């Protein structure tokens, strides 16, 4: 059993438990957030693979694709759900900025550790700033969509 397999199993378990805990009382909101982040995630993954910015040496479907599956199917979407769950209610601009920056840094740091200690990622032309900026944009799109969607959802 390789390290990568083990890491992925743990990530699946953590993600599922997290999702189960935080969906209580807000099932539909959690699910639509999860699904929308999933869509943003595969588009993002497609772009970074297309432009050869990263490689995924260890991946679930070796023949079918060069892209990783679990990370973008469940792990990052779970982070998206957490982002919406703890989104600050009062509009303190500085606090909001830090909130966005925190989440946009968490993913690159996580990715960086995976590349460092496992074969799940391999950076070819990777740029920290671009990754953080891309994450900021993704979180902003996510927030805009969810706030719009929520208007049509019975609380």
């Amino acid at each position, binding site marked *: 059993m390789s390290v990568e397999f083990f890491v992925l199993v743990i990530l699946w378990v953590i993600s599922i438990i997290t999702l189960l805990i935080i969906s209580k009382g807000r099932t539909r909101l959690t699910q639509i957030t999860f699904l929308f982040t999933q869509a943003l995630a595969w588009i993002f993954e497609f772009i970074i693979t297309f432009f050869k910015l990263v490689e995924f040496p260890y991946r679930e479907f070796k023949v079918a694709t060069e892209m990783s599956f679990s990370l973008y*199917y469940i792990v990052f979407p779970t982070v998206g759900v957490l982002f919406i769950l703890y989104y600050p209610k009062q509009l303190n601009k500085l606090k909001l900025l830090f909130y966005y920056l925190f989440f946009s840094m968490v993913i690159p740091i996580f990715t960086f550790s995976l590349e460092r200690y496992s074969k799940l990622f391999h950076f070819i032309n990777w740029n920290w700033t671009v990754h953080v900026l891309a994450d900021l944009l993704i979180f902003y799109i996510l927030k805009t969509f969810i706030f719009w969607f929520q208007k049509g959802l019975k609380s």
Partner: protein
Amino acid sequence: MNLERWILVGVIFVTILAIFTLIPRKRAREAWVLLLFLQVITWPAGLFVVEMGWIEYPIQLLKRTNQYNRTSLTFEFFIFPIVAIIFSLYFPNVKRLGAIIYYVCYAGFFTCIEVLLERTTRLVEYHEWTWYWTLITVIISLFLNHKYYLWYKKKLIKVKA
């Protein structure tokens, strides 16, 4: 550009047209639920059938696609989801037999187009795959997606835009 890509562009164009003509703006949230939930099924399923070597997509929209992803993203994340949205939004108010007929006719039409493309073009090639597998998997996907949508819809309320 070869014939296959023109067909693909044509299908995408028709699908975009369908979005604007067949999906009413006031049902946008329902459409989003249908669109997004289907990827939960088609993403792993699409990868799995290609991984097993059952289906191949020799010609894709972008030229080098097969070097980094051999599943059909156009089909899984765009065409099929839009087809599924229209399927559920226009689901007739009928009893079980009527529903079965609707499922079979809808999925059957979809299967016919795929089989036609398989026979005449290089957009899709079946290896261990047959037309009835397409029919069955399309029906199962539509069924799961429709059930999820019916459950989700219970908490959706009507609002402006």
